[in-house]
């Protein structure tokens, strides 16, 4: 139940691809990785999560952290979420504050 992640930054759009499980055992490492985005000029953070099968509150906290530290005017996208992941995002109420898409449309 590992986490795989990949990050690309292009034209102010940070695309973060996640696969596997984002939980308390790996959220810390992932957060360290996201810190690399602090101080860069970013308008959108796009979490590409079609292969993410599980997320816990520790994972959502990393997304909150990203928004809080990378910039209040950054738009957060959640793209391709499976039902299990989307249910958790909805339970947290964060779905109201993210742009949720099936495919990234910008």
């Amino acid at each position, binding site marked *: 139940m590992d986490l795989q992640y990949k990050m690309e930054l292009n034209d102010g759009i940070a695309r973060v691809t996640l696969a596997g499980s984002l939980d*308390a055992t790996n959220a810390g490492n992932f957060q360290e990785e996201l810190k690399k985005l602090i101080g860069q000029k970013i308008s959108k953070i796009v979490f590409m999560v079609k292969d993410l099968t*599980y997320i816990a*509150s520790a994972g959502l*906290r990393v997304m909150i952290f990203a928004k809080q530290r990378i910039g209040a005017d950054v738009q957060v996208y959640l793209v391709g979420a499976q039902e299990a992941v989307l249910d958790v995002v909805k339970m947290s*109420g964060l779905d109201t504050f993210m742009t949720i898409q099936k495919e990234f449309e910008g």
Partner: protein
Amino acid sequence: MPASTHPAKLENLNDMLGFILDYARELGFDDKKIGKIRLAMEEILVNIISYSYPQTTGSIDIACSPTEGDKAGITIEVKDLGIPFNMLDKADPDTTLPMEERQIGGLGIFFAKQIMDVLTYERSGEANILRLTKYA
């Protein structure tokens, strides 16, 4: 009634969850409910790991059983010998706040309360005992 004891460390979290979920599968829970039980139990166990033993290292005892009474379900008893600590008392986070105003804590226990059908806490002697039930 399966029972097991684990060191209260994050590196043992997946073992603990595996132990619980194997039993939930045996009781016939489907994948969707298994995913929800996993989330609730991760949040409960991570809280114990984070707060129950601030000065020492300790362990967590887990026992699973079919729910008593008329309704079928799983009851998971989680016991630690840490400081008196009732995580169920924690106030729910405000889920209407935008991301930039969110506090870091509280979301996990809120999830557990949303998912599990019955949650009780008891301080018994030196032990914190949580009993969590999810109906089938």
